[in-house]
Structure formats: structure tokens, C-alpha cells
């Protein structure tokens, strides 16, 4: 199981927005912010299937996500904002007051490649 470099984008989704207002302590919200979307070809190259767990690492921290297949460009990952993305974010704001929250270079490594087996 190798490590592959991706560009990670933290984004917002309608479902995430709904569950923010329902309550962040519920499992539905936790599942949304812990699931990243990956191109099927990238999943194949990492040797993982939908539902697999991957470890995502930046220079600032690391966390794990469940993977799901989606219509995103190869080499890019999308994940809804939430506590897991906070662990990957650095505190530097480049003098703007806003930390960079998209377009991070991350290393992805499979942890559990085939959850159904």
C-alpha cells in the first residue's frame, strides 16, 4: 500500500449545511465531515474501494477519512469542512487573517483498503 499525493479541497455541501442546523453531535453530521470524495481512477491506483479508510497527512497534522467514489478530477479530493479538516489546517494566514482552507497538498495512505472483506 503506497502513499499518493493529492490536492485536497475542503468544501460545503447542502447536506452538511442541513446537518449543521440539526446538530453537530449526531452521527449523520459526523459521517458527512469524515467522508472524502475521490476519483475512481485514483481509488484504483491506491488499491482501495468505496468505504475504505485512508490517512490524510499535511505538514500541519493528520487524520483519517472514509473514502467514497465521486465525479471529481483526478488528483483532487473534496471533503466537507469540519473538525477533521481543522486537524490538517495550519495557523499561518499570510497576513490576511484567513488560513488557507483549500488547495492543500496532502499525502494519502490507505489504512483499511476493503471494509467489506
Amino acid at each position, binding site marked *: 500500500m503506497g502513499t499518493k499525493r493529492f490536492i485536497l479541497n475542503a*468544501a*460545503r455541501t447542502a447536506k452538511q449545511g442541513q446537518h449543521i442546523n440539526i446538530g*453537530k453531535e449526531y452521527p449523520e453530521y459526523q459521517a458527512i465531515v469524515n467522508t472524502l470524495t475521490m476519483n475512481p481512477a485514483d481509488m484504483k491506483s491506491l488499491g482501495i474501494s468505496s468505504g475504505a479508510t485512508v490517512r490524510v497527512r499535511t505538514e500541519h497534522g493528520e487524520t483519517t477519512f472514509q473514502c467514497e467514489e465521486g465525479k471529481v478530477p483526478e488528483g483532487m479530493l473534496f471533503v466537507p469542512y469540519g473538525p477533521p479538516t481543522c486537524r490538517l489546517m495550519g*495557523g499561518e494566514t499570510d497576513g490576511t*487573517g484567513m488560513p*488557507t482552507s*483549500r488547495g492543500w497538498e496532502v499525502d494519502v495512505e490507505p489504512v483499511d483498503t476493503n471494509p467489506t472483506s
Partner: protein
Amino acid sequence: MAAQLGGKVSCTLGEVKNRADFIVYWGSNPADCHPRHLSRYTIAQKGRFLPRGRKDRTVVVVDVRETKTSNPADVFLQIRPGKDFEVLTTLRALVKGQPVNPQLVAETGVTVEQLQDLVDRMKRARFGVMFFGMGLTMTRGKHMNSMAILTLATEMNAFTKFVAMPMRGHGNVTGADVVMRWTTSYPFAINFSRGYPRYNPGEFSTVDLLVRGDVDAALVLGADPGATMPMPAINRLAGIPTIVLDPKVTHTSRLARVHITTATTGISAPGTSYRMDEVPLTLRPPLRSPYPTDEEVVRRIHQAVARKPDWLTAHSGTSPIAQA
């Protein structure tokens, strides 16, 4: 910050609904993030000067991936991540008829022909609007990207009417900016410690103050930095007396020393909310709440603080350094 660098030509969403025949969404996916934006103000609406609604409007989406918003668009430009500034400055050159290098443009993921076609369409429009989201403002370049799109909108006014507007998220984030602007002249990152407002993003902004450990107490009002800020800032909030005013249990309320449950503004508390076009709207709550409003709690905290002697009087005759 971008508006300070490049100026800002804007309008209300009512004008967009009634007049905008050319709509650009740049780094923004309102179909997911602002679901009522498309139906109330842009694609689905018939306007006073656009009686055929969708048929009278051209919709362009610029993004790094296909989204629910790009599907119904007339033109979709899929650019490479981190190339927004390059595409915007190329558009500015093409608008002015300046030569551009096709090889350098190709690195952005789109061709000169695609961008020239976009510029031609923009110049033919009667009223153009560019909405830009976090895909532009939160990626590499940040406020310089925003400055580039605001400047493009300004320069387009040499040919036709054009405006640009950020797609603001969260409840009343625009209100915080607007009220701070008309009370202090600055939108955010304001330091009142000398008794008058001082402004310096990167120095007095919340994330920077927390990460550097410059603050020893925090009042969080209607926000959840525990689920949005970088970990070093969250760790600092957890280590100092943090007070949270929020109707719900949040990640921040869990790490706070004090959580005061308040009524939900707009549902069980009145107030004013600013729309993303900076139009203030009065909120009329349909329900009553047993909890106090944010305003009541802040007012009571302020009154309690005002009853205490100020720091200098309380420590008169002693050295501030010795006290520290």
C-alpha cells in the same frame, strides 16, 4: 481587503434579478451552498427587463470541477487548481485588447480562444454580474484573487454595466462586516485595547491572535471556531476562559468554560440580518423562546463589567508590569 485594493462595483440582488442578463459564478457552487440564490435571483427568475427568465440570461461557471451549478450553465470553464489569478489577469488583458501568451494561458487548463469567447460575451451583455465564492477567496492568492475579479468588473464598465459580489456564507456574516465598518471604519481584525479602533489583518485577526497566544480570554458569539479554525487556534481556545453564546451544543461550546444557551435569531429572537448584497432585513420571530437573546446576554455582561472599577483605578499605585 480586496475591496480596499481594487475598489468594488456592486448592486443589490433585486437589480440582479431584474437586470442581469450575464451571470458568472466563479469558485462558487450555489446549488449546494446557497440553494435559494439560483431560484430567487438568477437562473430561475423572470425580471422586469428579462421577461423570458432563463432564456434571457447567459450563465457561466468557472470552477476546478463539475458541480450541480455547472450542469445547467451555458458555459463551463474548468480551470486548474490555484490558477484563478492567472485566468483573471488574462481576461483583464483580453478585455483591453492586449496580447497574451497562449502557452502560458494553456497552463491554466483553458485556452485563449475560450477566454476570448468569454470576453466577447461579457462585452455583449447589457448587465453582467460576477459572483465569487470560497473556491476563489480561500485558495492560494486569497484576497489578491478577489482583488483581480473586482478589478475585472470595474474595468468592464468601460464597455457595459458590470458588477461583482462575494457569495457570503453563514448567517449574517455580512452584518458583522457592515456594522463594524460603519461603527469603526474597519470590517474585521480590529483592536480596541487603546480605546480607539486599530486595524491590521494578520496581527489583530482572530486566528492570528489565538495561534500566537496573544489573548487570555475569548467571547464567541454565534460561531463555531472549534469546527472551522486551525488546530493551534482551537487548542488556544480550549486553554483559556472561553465563553460561548449559542442556541446549540457545538464543538466550541464543548471546549468552553461557560456556555450560555440563547434564543435562535430569526426563529425565536428578533434582530436584523444583512443579506450578501448588504441589504439589512428585519427578522420577525414566529416562536417564543425560554432563553434570552444574544443581545440581552451581551447587554447584561456589559452592565456587570461596567459596574467594576476600571483596571487602572483598581491597580492605582502599582506597576502594570508587576501585576502582570
